[in-house]
């Protein structure tokens, strides 16, 4: 009961703010709504007993990546940019893509509704609290991807510094 209320609240919040992200003229306001969408998603994660993903989402996504976004928006924000046309005339393409996507998913759900539709109430002990299990998987089974991810981050960091530097 409470679970469902929380989910639908966060889901609605996420969708509404996601729509606002792509429709606001001002990039800073878009960023604010993106943060809201991400936090709403984080709430959904928490509702799914994924505490660690929740906190990673909050710290990294909302607290880290989005701060970077806001920072860059402020650096490049031009008053002129606000008065320019903000949208391409490609609504048609977007609509088609969305429609095709929606149809696909609807079909998928319709076909497999019996196997997928009802989520089994997961036994509480399997997933709660699972921070330790996440750590176990991360550092045992998925050790190599983890290290690769850190290398990816390093490369990205170097790349970002090189590109954003003033005089190369």
């Amino acid at each position, binding site marked *: 009961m409470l679970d469902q209320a929380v989910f639908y609240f966060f889901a609605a919040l996420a969708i509404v703010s996601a729509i606002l992200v792509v429709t606001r003229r001002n990039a*800073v306001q878009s960023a604010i709504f993106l943060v809201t969408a991400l936090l709403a998603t984080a709430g959904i994660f928490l509702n799914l007993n994924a505490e660690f993903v929740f906190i990673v989402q909050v710290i990294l996504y909302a607290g880290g990546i989005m701060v970077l976004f806001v920072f860059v928006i402020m650096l490049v924000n031009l008053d002129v940019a606000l008065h320019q046309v903000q949208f391409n005339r490609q609504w048609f393409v977007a609509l088609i893509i969305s429609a095709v996507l929606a149809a696909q998913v609807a079909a998928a759900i319709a076909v497999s509704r019996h196997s997928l539709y009802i989520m089994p109430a997961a036994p509480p002990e399997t997933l709660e609290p699972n921070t330790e299990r996440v750590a176990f998987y991360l550092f045992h089974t998925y050790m190599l991807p983890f290290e690769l991810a850190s290398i990816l981050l390093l490369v990205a960091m170097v790349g970002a510094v090189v590109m954003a530097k003033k005089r190369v």
Partner: protein
Amino acid sequence: MNLNAIIPYILPVLFALVIVALLPLVAGYIVLVERKVMADMQVRLGPMRVGPHGLLQPIADAVKLLLKEDIIPESADKLVFWGAPLISVTAAMLALAALPIGPFFQIADLNIGLLYILGISSLGIFGIVLGGWASNSHYSLMGALRSAAQLVSYETSAGMAIVGALLLAGTLSTRGIVQEQSDTGWWFIFVAPVGFFIYLVASIAETNRAPFDMPEAESELVAGYMTEYSGFRWALYFLAEYTNMVVVASIATTLFLGGWMRPFANTPAFNFLDYLPPLLMLWVAGYCFRRTPKQPVQVQKMFMAAVGVLCVVVALVLIMPMAVPRDSFLATSKPGIHGAFWFLFKVAAYIYVFMWLRFTFPRYRFDQLMRLGWQFLVPLSIVNVMMIGLALALHRQFGWPNWISFPLCVALTLIGGGFLLATGEKHEHPFVGEEGEGQEEETPVHA
């Protein structure tokens, strides 16, 4: 709906209400204490007019701020300008949810408690950045940008310092961390002093306090991101800042200073320390009563006496669990009451250190701040984490006794710190040397 289903929610909601209701008052009185401490260090008296010894000053200030005209600049982004202080305050208050004020007084004991506090309080930066941007003023924008850069940088080292303590505790739950310190009998400040130092510095920077108060440096940026704010919105920023101070002080207390534990909690020989809290309160009460006849007005006399009586009541509450028979209900409340006292006492001491540093040191320059953060604190915190890991490994894998492995690793960390400090001296003033090459601005081809 079943009543039993609601009961677990009642107490946390009650605690949350208490904290949200009391926090503005607490923040106001921290400001008063700060002004008093500052005055004492600067051979002055500080606020003395509103109430005896200025005790009603926070309330007068609050009333003034609430009644002030709410100015929103003409060219500001109204929505963001309106919402930004709320973000700051909300983030700061949410972070309090996972803090254990004594063993019984906690809103929620999350199993990711510490990460939760870190994550939520890192959201407060949006309030600052967006507020600075929305004001549409150069000073505000520069304050906001500085603050974004500063908070992101120092969160790194604060996080690493916390990782060090987490390695020792082996859990993320705030209650578990205190329990671990209680079990071993060693506060983590003695096991990882360097980690505590890093956290102290980083937490000052994170709360934008002097000597790292770059975002609001009043002599450079007027008031930084708050320049265009006034009245109640400004008060909200202020509330957020002081709440954040309480939050970082609570984290430090929980992680490094033994949380709600009394000093020497496990040594029966020091049990007389249990009488210290009531005695302290009685001493404060005595001071209040002594000063009562010296107040100029009848009302002030009564108020001063009332403060004294309040202190006596608190002292009685503190002494009550020890006076009653051992197995009565009141006696079992002793850890809760005394735990809360010691927790708040340690938080207050930590905040006092903040104030002390603020009134002693000049302000860093922004590039120096960043250099200190990235070239000294971050490497040092990494060294610290590695050394704590090494100490734990030596102890657990090779069976070295604790009293060898930990001092050894602290010494190694200190050597690392000294090395960093020595190399850091070399790059002092990058901007003076750069001036020559700054002239030859390359022109973009297509511009």
